């Protein structure tokens, strides 16, 4: 086969494949979403609010912000005890 003919055929096959795969992904993605909505109950993340026996809120907020910077968002303040 001539290179140019092969290039054209690759173009056809390539674009068809790319469209087909992304079409499939859209379809399957929708199926996953529907099935998970139906069968996997939403897991509600509970954010614990701690109140007493802790440093004042201002300090807490400041430290939380500081930790967030220090750890590039990977850490979180789970508890600050008065020592």
């Amino acid at each position, binding site marked *: 086969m001539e*290179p*140019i003919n*092969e*290039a*054209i055929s*690759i*173009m056809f*096959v*390539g*674009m068809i*494949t*790319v*469209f*087909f*795969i*992304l*079409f*499939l*992904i*859209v379809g*399957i*993605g*929708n199926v*996953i*979403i*529907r099935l*998970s*909505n139906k069968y*996997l*109950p*939403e*897991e509600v993340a509970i954010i614990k609010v701690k109140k007493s026996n802790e440093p004042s809120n201002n300090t807490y907020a400041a430290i939380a912000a500081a930790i967030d910077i220090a750890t590039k968002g990977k850490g979180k303040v789970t508890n600050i005890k008065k020592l």
Partner: protein
Amino acid sequence: MEDILSKLYDMTALGGFSFQVALMWIIAFVLLYLGIKKGYEPLLLVPIAFGVLLANFPGGGMGIVPAENIALEGGRYKNLFEIAHEYGIMNYLYYGLIKTGFLPPIIFMGVGALTDFGPMLRNLKLAMFGAAAQIGIFSVLLVAVLLGFTLKEAASLGIIGGADGPTAIYTTIKLAPHLLGPIAIAAYSYMALVPVIIPLVANLLMTKKEFKINMRQMDKEYPPKHSIKNIKAVKIIFPIVLGCVTAIFVPSSVPLLGMLLFGNLVKEIGSATFRLADAATGAIMNTATIFLGLSVGATMTAEVFLSPKTLGIVVGGFIAFAISIAGGIVAVKIYNLFAKKKINPLVGATGLSAVPMASRVANEMALKHDSTNHILQYCMASNISGVIGSAVAAGVLISFLS
């Protein structure tokens, strides 16, 4: 005394210096300037540029030797110890980690662990435009063949239009490793130039009215049928199923997409596999980036780089980017002809990939025309699907041509 002086001279690289070498140094300095001062993808361009420099120190032994040098008779090859012994550490890195096709999938694992499929899952339909925006790859392949490139070279050139570094590098390693340097540089340079190229093409093809199409407004008028109730579960299941589907139809994309999805999976699982995601995005990815950059740069010795093909790559790569963007925009325009719920064509433009800069640029353009028109999340949907799109395209090219 004369003897010592002649020895001194032999020790230096003064004899190996030439006009070509000087030209390569200038290219390296320009790349360093772009990476450091202009901030063009510095994580890749600085190591590549330094690799170019290292490779063009005559007598430094840091330039990559052609593949013929490591081939033996009977389809066999020198082993890595022999390569290090004869050609030094840079060839050891190149033939051990790059020519084996190892590092691009490894970097893709890190990319996966940094990718959030959330925006795409919330606007799945928009993922289709990540397919349309691959047209630049195949158009440039066609043109390049007409201009005298071999099919393999033309495919490697075209894949620049995928706007995805590891994919471009992986495809070129498999099809036309002698063009690796310029193709890698073109890919990363044009990715850095996305803030220039997207506006150029978009302003050419889009009307003022189209820029103002407000996606959130559309979502209010035509609300989506269902929302996702358990996003964590969907995000865990999605990469697994996605991997299986693409693997069945384009097995040659498995090394790239498989690793991408593995990286994404260990990230989405959360704290139980945090150590793995952390390694994939940290130690592994950074180390791979250093070694990839330096040794890709080191492929660009003067003899290899200073050829007319390099010029073709620079021009062709730009055209591939532009056509890909245009393809995405036109696909949205055609869609809008038939649909009531209009889509902003900028969402098509980001099908190119170049995550996440393309989305940011598109978002800014939309905001410039209407300061309430936040389209970032919609752009991210086609933007991420563009990564999958070009990996699939790469798979097709590799399976047909290698």
